[in-house]
């Protein structure tokens, strides 16, 4: 059958792109070749809309062993230990089939990490759903949580932190971002770059089926009478096989036989083989008849495009095939030599002894299109002039209760209790704190990780929003006593062909870049997910930032629960009372306009570093960053977790107590200190020119402020703990 422009368009290529393919090849591609181009030139593989801007990310630092461009980023944590980590989106599949979509998302990111030789030690997730009023939300949430748990629990990797958000902009397009951290010896990291001629190309893992061959395969079915048989199928995850694959790969990696290794993720065999060859500036020849298939009569087209899970491609040293095969036999996994590296610089595919495709690797990788899409700058919204009398009928106490039971603020225990967060025996801070913390097995070190997004701020002003997420990540790590090391980012945006969406993307990226550079908090890996829209309605711009930090001694870890009566609570950082875009303004004043809180990178860095300094001197007993919901929400959470109360000293010289208590100014922390050490602490804060206020004194079990309120912590706990549970069981 002849390939024509319409078929190319059905494969998601534009007419211009199809023309370019013809020009490059100096002939028409056949159907298999066209499919390979469509997969490699797809936004997902080629980053054609984003590449230009991603170049501006800050990716360097002495801690960075591997930045973006590999399966995952790698940072140095001392003593030959390195942490491999990355985040990835699985938004669209999760909306169609929440359980399998989320499960395979977790499976995919774990493969990215163990491909590099690292044993996964922690998982995190950032999940965004539509409004809680939306009929679909509950089932999607239930399915996604079961899927994440179902996969991670089975592999035996603890899920130590995450983030859950509800907003109507995700009604038709939920977000499921999964992140994994792995531990590796820094001298035993594996990369995907092929090297050497005539080296065997090995396929290991599960068999190939017709999973996820996207709409594209339907186009091919038109030419065939077996349409029904060729229907693409949803990818189903098999965590058991992944666990075997993990153990088998790590076992093989102990030997010196792997030249390069790459998991088969999106676009399966196509992208893995092309990427390995492209990085090594080599050619690759595959005999598709040798690929282990799950179903009969699979065509080269299907084999190349299949997204069946739990598969890897390995380039081995010659002569190591038998010893490698023995390992995969032991773990009961498929193992097949399916090709070799060549010096042709072409991708050559053989099927039933016939050549079925031949494409120069460069055409697929380096010559893939890059677009400089038009984008629109987004102005900083004007400040809102809140009228004094709208506050008159409000009571702080009622506002606090409402905020604590807001779906975006309330406790997410219903979710994280379904994740095994203690397996591997090294979790020292569970979900529920500012960051999850796991020990580096067998050492005194520990690694902290968190995941954050703030779509509301990003939607209001993407540049500020981009900076803010990075800062929030930095703050969450510091709050548990960790030195922030590096980040990974998952950029979830709408349609890049729309100037507004593209503008949101460009400015968020530039905000992320600016903040991460200033804070020496580089981006080492990431992922872009565009086209998050349904029926023309796009999501709010949602960059998720996954942060990783290091504790030299895990015994110095800090948690947020209040520890002891009579201790003093300080607010570190200045409170100006910015309430536009705060939960308070949006939920209680019903005002959704205005700019997000400003980011002052100097203060951010100075405050954070000073808090770390205080921690190092062992002056801090509990710490929590102040984020959505402001001071009062933050202190309420510390009280609830520690089962203690606080007597708050009235703030001085501020016009409006609502601004003070619910404002979301950035760069702030609450810290608990022993009152007898107040002098030492004040001295250090002053030396470093850090602004601070005394918030109050730790008490038995009520939250008190003069005549304003005196609330039993149990009452607040009910607000905080029950909302999600009730929502899910009803």
């Amino acid at each position, binding site marked *: 059958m002849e390939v024509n422009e319409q078929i190319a368009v059905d494969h998601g290529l534009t007419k211009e792109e199809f023309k370019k393919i013809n020009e490059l090849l100096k002939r028409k591609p056949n159907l298999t070749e066209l499919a390979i181009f469509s997969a490699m030139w797809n936004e997902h593989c080629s980053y054609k809309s984003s590449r230009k801007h991603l170049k501006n990310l800050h990716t360097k630092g002495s801690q960075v062993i591997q930045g973006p461009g590999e399966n995952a980023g790698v940072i140095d944590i001392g003593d030959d230990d390195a942490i491999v980590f990355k985040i990835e989106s699985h938004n669209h599949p999760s909306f169609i089939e929440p359980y399998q979509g989320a499960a395979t998302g977790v499976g995919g990111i774990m493969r990215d990490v163990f491909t590099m030789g690292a044993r996964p030690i922690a998982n995190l997730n950032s999940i965004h759903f539509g409004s809680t009023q939306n009929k679909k939300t509950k089932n999607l949430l239930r399915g996604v949580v079961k899927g994440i748990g179902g996969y991670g629990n089975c592999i035996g990797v603890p899920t130590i932190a995450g983030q859950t958000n509800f907003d109507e902009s995700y009604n038709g397009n939920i977000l499921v971002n999964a992140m994994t951290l792995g531990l590796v010896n820094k001298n035993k990291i594996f990369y995907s770059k092929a090297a050497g001629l005539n080296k065997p190309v090995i396929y290991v893992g599960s068999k190939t*089926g017709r999973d996820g061959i996207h709409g594209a395969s339907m186009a091919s079915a038109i030419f065939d009478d077996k349409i029904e048989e060729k229907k693409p*199928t*949803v990818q189903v995850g*098999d965590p*058991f096989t992944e666990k075997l694959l993990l153990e088998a790969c790590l076992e093989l990696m102990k030997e010196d036989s792997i030249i390069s290794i790459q998991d088969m993720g999106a676009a399966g065999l196509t992208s893995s083989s092309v990427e390995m060859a492209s990085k090594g500036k080599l050619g690759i020849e595959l005999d598709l008849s040798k690929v282990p298939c*799950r*179903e009969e009569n699979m065509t080269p087209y299907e084999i190349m495009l299949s997204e069946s899970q739990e598969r890897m491609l390995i380039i081995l040293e010659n002569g190591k095939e038998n010893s490698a095969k023995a390992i995969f036999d032991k773990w009961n996994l498929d193992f097949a030599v399916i090709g070799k590296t060549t010096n042709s610089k072409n991708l050559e595919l053989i099927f039933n002894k016939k050549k079925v495709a031949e494409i120069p690797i460069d055409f697929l990788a380096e010559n893939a299109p890059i677009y400089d899409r038009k984008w629109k700058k987004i102005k900083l919204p004007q400040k809102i002039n809140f009228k004094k009398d709208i506050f008159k009928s409000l009571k702080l106490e009622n506002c606090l209760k409402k905020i604590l039971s807001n779906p975006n603020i309330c406790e997410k225990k219903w979710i994280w209790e379904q994740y095994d967060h203690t397996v591997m025996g090294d979790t020292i801070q569970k979900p529920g704190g500012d960051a999850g913390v796991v020990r580096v097995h067998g050492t005194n070190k520990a690694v902290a990780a968190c995941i954050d997004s703030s779509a509301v701020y990003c939607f209001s002003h993407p540049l500020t929003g981009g900076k803010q997420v990075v800062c929030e990540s930095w703050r969450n790590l510091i709050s548990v006593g960790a030195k922030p090391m590096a980040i990974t980012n998952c950029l979830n945006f709408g349609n890049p062909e729309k100037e507004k969406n593209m503008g949101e993307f460009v400015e968020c990226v530039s905000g992320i870049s600016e903040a991460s550079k200033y804070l020496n908090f580089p981006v080492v890996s990431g992922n872009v997910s565009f086209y998050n829209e349904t029926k023309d309605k796009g999501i709010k711009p949602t960059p998720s930032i996954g942060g990783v930090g290091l504790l030299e001694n895990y015994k110095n870890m800090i948690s947020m629960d209040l520890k002891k009566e009579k201790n003093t609570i300080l607010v570190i950082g200045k409170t100006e009372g910015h309430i536009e875009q705060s939960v308070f303004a949006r939920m209680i004043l019903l005002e959704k306009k205005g700019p997000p809180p400003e980011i002052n990178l100097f203060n951010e860095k100075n405050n954070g570093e000073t808090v770390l300094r205080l921690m190092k001197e062992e002056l801090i007993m509990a710490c929590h960053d102040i984020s959505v919901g402001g001071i009062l929400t933050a202190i309420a959470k510390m009280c609830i977790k520690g089962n203690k109360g606080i007597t708050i000293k009235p703030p001085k010289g501020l016009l409006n107590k609502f601004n003070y208590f619910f404002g979301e100014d950035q760069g702030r922390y609450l810290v608990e200190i022993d009152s007898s050490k107040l002098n030492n602490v004040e001295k250090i804060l002053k030396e470093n020119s850090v602004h601070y206020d005394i918030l109050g004194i730790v008490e038995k079990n009520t939250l008190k402020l003069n005549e304003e309120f005196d609330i039993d912590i149990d009452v607040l706990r009910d607000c905080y703990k029950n909302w999600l549970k009730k929502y899910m069981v009803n």
Partner: protein
Amino acid sequence: MKIKIIVTLKSGVLDPQGKAIQQTLNGMGFLDVKDVRQGKYFDIETNETDEVKAKNKVDEMCKKLLANLVIEDYKIL
């Protein structure tokens, strides 16, 4: 009355459970077993006494809840 339903994975959809069972059966010496696919079975007891009406209702339940049509087929026995 009681209505019985079988929900099975669509052909082509990976069935890790079936695969594991098949391998175990082979390992136990049942070498003739070539393939196993696992599905779900439901026994629904309803107050509806008219068989046609009852089956129509059950059909609706299958579509709306019992089967995930993205990956599963169902059959009312």
